């Protein structure tokens, strides 16, 4: 039986490269970042990860909501126009 009309398969970018939705981008100021992971936890998209010196953002999918800036207690994220 052909199940393709009713079964959907796991896909990253199910709605495309949502980075293109952005008007503003969050930019990490590495020297201020304490890697507290607040932005990692609160990012609705799950596109922030802890990197070598600071957190890193996957701009392919970051929708630019700005929540990361709001939850950063170190003020290590600024929002800049695209």
């Amino acid at each position, binding site marked *: 039986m052909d199940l393709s009309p009713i079964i*959907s398969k796991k*896909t990253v970018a199910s709605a495309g490269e949502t980075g293109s*939705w952005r008007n503003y981008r969050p930019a990490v100021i590495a020297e201020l970042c304490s890697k507290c992971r607040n932005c990692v936890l*609160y990012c*609705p998209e799950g596109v922030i990860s802890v990197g070598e010196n600071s957190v890193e953002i996957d701009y*392919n999918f970051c929708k630019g909501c700005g929540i990361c800036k709001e939850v950063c207690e170190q003020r290590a994220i600024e929002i800049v126009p695209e």
Partner: protein
Amino acid sequence: MILPGNASCQGCPISMAMRCLDEISKPVLVIPAGCSTVIAGLHPKSAMNGPVVHVPFPSTHSVAAGLSEAYKRIGVKANVVAWMGDGAADIGFAALSASAARKDDLITIVVDNEAYMNTGTQASLSTFWKARTTTSPAGKTEERRNLALIMLAHKADYVATASVGYIRDLRRKFRKAGVMKGFRFIHVHTPCPPGWKFPSEKTVDVARKAVMSGAWILWEYDGKLKLSKAGEKYASKENRIPLEDYLKQGRFSHLSDEEIRELEQKIDEDWELLLRFS
């Protein structure tokens, strides 16, 4: 559980809560109609890295109960998760109540954005008093239904309220529910930027102000009711922020000072009622 590049709006609290599902092992999601249906992926794509069973609006708990019962019989370990908005909790209330009374072995997560958002912000039973929606353009006049308290009255095995403003507390509650058995219910407050009319970066801020003003109470029950650490101090009125600070949303822009005092009264009554059970 939710993968990047999904269809959620900017600053979506449901997407934030969905990410926390990684605290629950072997989840099988049952999702009725709502924003979550769209976020979870449009055919032929699924935005989730686990199984999702899409179902009609009022059926969520009964489909979840069937899955849970069948897994038990065929010896499959699973955490069946009935994941729904306040809309599905409204229309599926009879099934929710029956499932709680049967103590079905499943986790219910209601992501409550206080209106029917996916159809365009119509009033739900959860809509905040006096809030403007597309079906209550002059402000909602009915009561705000307290779903978690109703679940407490069913003596559910676990009942918790949570908020996307307190994600560590929320994750802890998901984790706790995930290792328990029986009927587990978590009511998550999910402020919605387009529905409540506030900027997308303010989701967490608004969620926290709901708790800090006393408008959303964080508590849990596992045989005994207790206030959650993250919000317990707001039981005392003097610790709360002014309600006006929370109400800085488009849906409340019509309120007079007198109406805001009425809302404060309502909030006090909710605290009083809840604390009678503690």
